[in-house]
């Protein structure tokens, strides 16, 4: 778990985190293809720098709020990987007790208080976390991760206005991967101007290269510092590209206008290869980085093996927890 690197950037650690997410996502894609996983999995491959860069600016007590494509947010914030894989495989020991699957993840102790797939739904929830922080004076911040499609929902705009009005410690982090499901950005918006929503609502807005983990970290760090000091929200538009399809491991070449051509442009901008290149330029040796790769491989293999061996839930608990009990 990344806890307190809020005033410096540890690129090697961020490289490791991104690689970890990449490997988990690739393996989850394999599990989908081999039908060992049936829950809809929206893979984060290509976007890893955003979750990792943003979460590197956070403390454990801060909250993150995500959507259908949130494996990366969960892992970057420090969620237990085995619990996530178990959840995705429908195991009783999964982080959501086998009621959530890929799209509903929980890591209560480290500020992942529920990711859900209703587009834009958790944006107001993040604002609510900001309200709690403000009323309690806790200094906690909330990061709302959402895609470009979510900015077309009315409650995105309502939420930015509320957070601006009440100066709530919220970072609105739009991961603009240029697709909402099968629809390209230009098919849904007359202008490529998501970041301008900030100006409309009177908050700072910054557009950042979402494949540059250090750039995401610095933008997030500035937004977090502003929020923590009572300065209110920031809208960050991190531009990136979704390598795989909307759901599942397939790249969906047949969807959108020219995804095959677009991917040719974007794969060279791979945030992980880029971080590695920079690390080498800064004097890290290849062997050191290779050992990170093999450590990550070993971890992922072990987690999948362990999750596979876990029991499925008993049907006797089917109707438990429809209503919460006292003291939750």
């Amino acid at each position, binding site marked *: 778990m990344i806890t307190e690197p809020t005033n410096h950037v540890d690129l090697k650690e961020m490289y490791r985190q991104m690689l970890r997410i990449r490997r988990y996502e690739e393996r989850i894609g394999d599990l989908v293809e081999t039908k060992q996983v049936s829950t809809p999995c929206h893979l984060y491959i290509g976007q890893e720098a955003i979750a990792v860069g943003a979460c590197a600016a956070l403390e454990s007590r801060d909250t993150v709020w995500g959507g259908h494509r949130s494996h990366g947010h969960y892992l970057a914030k420090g969620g237990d990987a085995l619990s996530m894989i178990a959840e995705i495989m429908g195991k009783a020991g999964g982080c959501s007790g086998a009621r959530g699957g890929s799209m509903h993840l929980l890591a209560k102790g480290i500020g992942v208080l529920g990711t859900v797939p209703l587009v834009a739904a958790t944006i107001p*929830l*993040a604002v*609510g976390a900001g309200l709690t922080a403000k009323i309690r004076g806790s200094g906690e911040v909330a990061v709302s991760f959402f895609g470009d499609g979510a900015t077309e929902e009315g409650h995105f705009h309502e939420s930015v*206005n509320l957070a601006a009005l009440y100066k709530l410690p919220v970072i609105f982090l739009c991961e603009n991967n240029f697709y909402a499901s099968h629809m390209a950005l230009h098919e849904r918006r007359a202008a490529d101007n998501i970041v301008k929503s900030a100006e409309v609502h009177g908050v700072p807005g910054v557009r950042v290269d979402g494949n540059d983990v250090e750039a995401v970290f610095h933008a997030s760090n500035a937004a977090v510092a502003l929020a923590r000091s009572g300065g209110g929200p920031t809208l960050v538009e991190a531009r990136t590209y979704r390598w795989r399809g909307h759901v599942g491991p397939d790249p969906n070449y047949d969807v959108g206008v020219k995804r095959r051509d677009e991917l040719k442009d974007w794969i060279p901008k791979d945030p992980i290869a880029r971080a590695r290149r920079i690390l080498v330029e800064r004097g890290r040796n290849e062997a050191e980085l290779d050992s990170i790769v093999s450590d990550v491989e070993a971890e992922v293999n072990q987690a999948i093996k362990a999750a596979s061996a876990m029991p499925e839930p008993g049907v006797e608990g089917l109707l438990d927890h429809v*209503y919460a009990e006292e003291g939750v």
Partner: protein
Amino acid sequence: MSLRELSYAQAIREAHAQLLAKDERVVLLGQGLWSPWYAGSSLMDLEKEFGKDRVMDTPVSENATTGMAVGAAITGLRPIVFHPRMDFMLLAVDPIVNQAANWSYLFSGKISAPVVFRATINRGGEQGAQHSQALQAMFAHIPGLKVVMPACPADAKGLMIAAVEDPNPVLYIDDRWLYDIKEPVGESPVATPIGKARIVCSGEDLTIISSSHSAWLCEQAAEKLKKLGVSVEVIDLRSVRPIDENAIVASLRKTGRLLVVDGAWKACGISAEIAAIASESAFESLKAPVRRLTLPDAPAPTSRVLEKAYYFGVDDIVKAALGFHIPRSTTTPIQAQP
């Protein structure tokens, strides 16, 4: 416990004030909190007593405001979101139904959204279709949500306290037509248990199940029916999710006849649920088919003439009860005893 007379609206206000005073997690938000136009006296001057940071009159953003309350609840506050016209709350169905109601189940009870959605039924006054709706059935359909509808000042207070104390999301529906009704209300903040019906009056010949403003009408109808020699048991459900099935069945075992009175639409409504409960769980006790008195299955009109025809009153309930042609019991006095 000392009692003084409070109106229904004053009782709601007292519940809010006591909750704000005793629990720092409680915050109020929604539209119209700082204005008497929307909440009547039910929230009067709370912002002066507790500050505008905890009593927030919010922008015209039902969805995000309600979602903000849900997020605040998940992170440890006990928010009450006010929707002064229930109709407008439909803009906030996602945070209520998809989010708050599901939160406990989705995450196997490890977390929940203890938030109160307060919606006011604000019909009459020629306001028409979008300022009049009683939509309890839509929300009572949802697992994970509780729906309460106080019919009297004591419950207006007690159910609000219970709603805030509950670890689950609770929809609290009040009715402007009840705001001026007065009765003795206890001073201390005591919760009315959610899911336990109130026997408004006991009787032998007929059970009338109702809630909210309709229950108040039924209470008056029962008085009239008593004078006509019909002994009526009126049950105020208090909560339409969960429904107190035991109270319904116990009463039907005694009376064998059921009239359901619901100030909302008939199709797929609460009255249908009550009729189904009677059929499933008390069929052998029924002496006659279940009867229902509801609003017509049409939007609310504006014209006062049409409004008068649209809403039922005490006499309509009496008439519906007399439709059972209950033989006058030898033990039931024709004239009410003082």
